[in-house]
């Protein structure tokens, strides 16, 4: 029996690879989008005017304090009520991008605030514009603090993306659900699902560890 199922499973490997592709595509899109938006928000959160800082802080807390599944349902099932109709895939990317932007915002703001205030003052005093202060002095010093948790966040994002299977996106997890209906050997099927996630995440985890070591002993001296 086991051998038969294994053969079947190998037969549905193309489907798994397709799921892998979807998971990778959704992850990369929201990871890139989330990073860009997250950095943008983080910089404002650390140094913008009060009402805007407060607004971003509120939004970030709201998103971090509610389950991702609920956020996804709201985008997919409630948005249409107010006239925003999104297919499953765009809805998934939008929700994931928002989620990662919020986490990355906090990471970036934390890194920026960890740079001593005197650094910015010295740069301002020598005539550098706010943008130049950020670009040449604050960010380079904040990056060692930001990078390790940022990469860690990417791993979380990829794993969190499995939630999007519930609205019908055929990612790896969804492929697992579909397959297990034909091959009732759950351990085997979801074992494969797990392995596929691990294959994507493991290199990133290693990279994150490497970065952490680099940042500790690297060229940034304090």
């Amino acid at each position, binding site marked *: 029996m086991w051998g038969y199922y294994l053969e079947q499973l190998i037969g549905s490997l193309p489907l798994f690879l397709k799921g892998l592709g979807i998971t990778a595509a959704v992850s990369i899109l929201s990871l890139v989008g989330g990073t860009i938006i997250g950095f943008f928000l983080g910089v404002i959160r650390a140094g913008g005017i009060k009402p805007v800082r407060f607004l971003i802080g509120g939004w970030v807390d709201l998103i971090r304090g509610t389950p991702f599944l609920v956020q996804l349902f709201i985008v997919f099932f409630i948005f249409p009520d107010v006239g925003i109709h999104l297919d499953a895939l765009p809805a998934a990317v939008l929700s994931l991008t928002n989620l990662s932007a919020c986490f990355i915002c906090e990471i970036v703001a934390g890194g920026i605030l960890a740079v001593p205030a005197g650094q910015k003052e010295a740069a301002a005093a020598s005539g550098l514009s706010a943008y130049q202060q950020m670009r040449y002095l604050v960010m380079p010093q904040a990056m060692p603090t930001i990078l390790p948790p940022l990469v860690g966040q990417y791993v979380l994002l990829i794993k969190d993306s499995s939630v999007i299977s519930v609205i019908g996106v055929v990612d790896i997890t969804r492929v697992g659900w579909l397959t297990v209906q034909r091959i009732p050997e759950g351990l085997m099927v979801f074992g494969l699902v797990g392995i596929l996630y691990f294959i994507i995440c493991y290199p990133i985890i290693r990279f994150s560890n490497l970065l952490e070591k680099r940042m500790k002993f690297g060229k940034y*001296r304090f």
Partner: protein
Amino acid sequence: MGNTGFEKKITLLRPNDIKPTFFKKIAAMGIKDMITFKNVNKWFGKHHVLKEINLNVEPGEVLVVCGPSGSGKSTLLRCINRLESLQSGEIIIDGIKVHGRETNITKLRAEIGFVFQQFNLYPHMTAIENITIAPIKVRKLKKEVARKLGQEILDKVGLGDKAGSYPSQLSGGQQQRVAIARGLCMQPKIMLFDEPTSSLDPEMINEVLDVIRNLANEGMTMIVVTHEMGFAREAANRVAFIDEGRLVEIAPPEKFFKNPKNERTRLFLSKILAR
């Protein structure tokens, strides 16, 4: 002494240093102030930190400012390059209102070197990178030109061989001299020093004061917040005493030290000179 800072500047300038604007200024007559405080008031919330400050600093003048901790010395300096805002009054630098709405503040700051008590060097950059970043990004100097200028200035502060060192590889005195070089590299009109030697070990104080003394001799307009009264005596044109946000006394050093008018100045001096 008796020299005003302005006369000093004339005698010490080399001929090719004298710019046409210099003569225009003389022609315009009356010595134009480099720094002017007019009824300046500064509050931090309910705390009145600077009270009705009136003050002029002439081109080439060296003003030493002293006063007890918390009296507002740092705040006074930080208002000059708008690191702090004012609540009333105005500060005018070389004819430009510092806190004016239309004032291009980054442009104005480029003309004012600021040296902090804690150095505030950029830890991720070498000494030469520390001092050339602003000339390159603000003055738009070519990198090679800036480096050459930077190297000259490092030579001048006695750190010609430290161009490639990171701040963490330098002693406190060396770091503070790099910080001074960073200000000078912008070729500013004014240098401001906020207790430049008070976080240094005693044996390093003089190497920093020497650099500041040389600047004074070259005719740089400077305000130096310091409690180094020996330095004040020889290098300052005038010494000011600030207490609880008020400019209590300002006088040439011989008068300030021998014959202070105000009782509080006397008390402060006796305390500080007894140390």
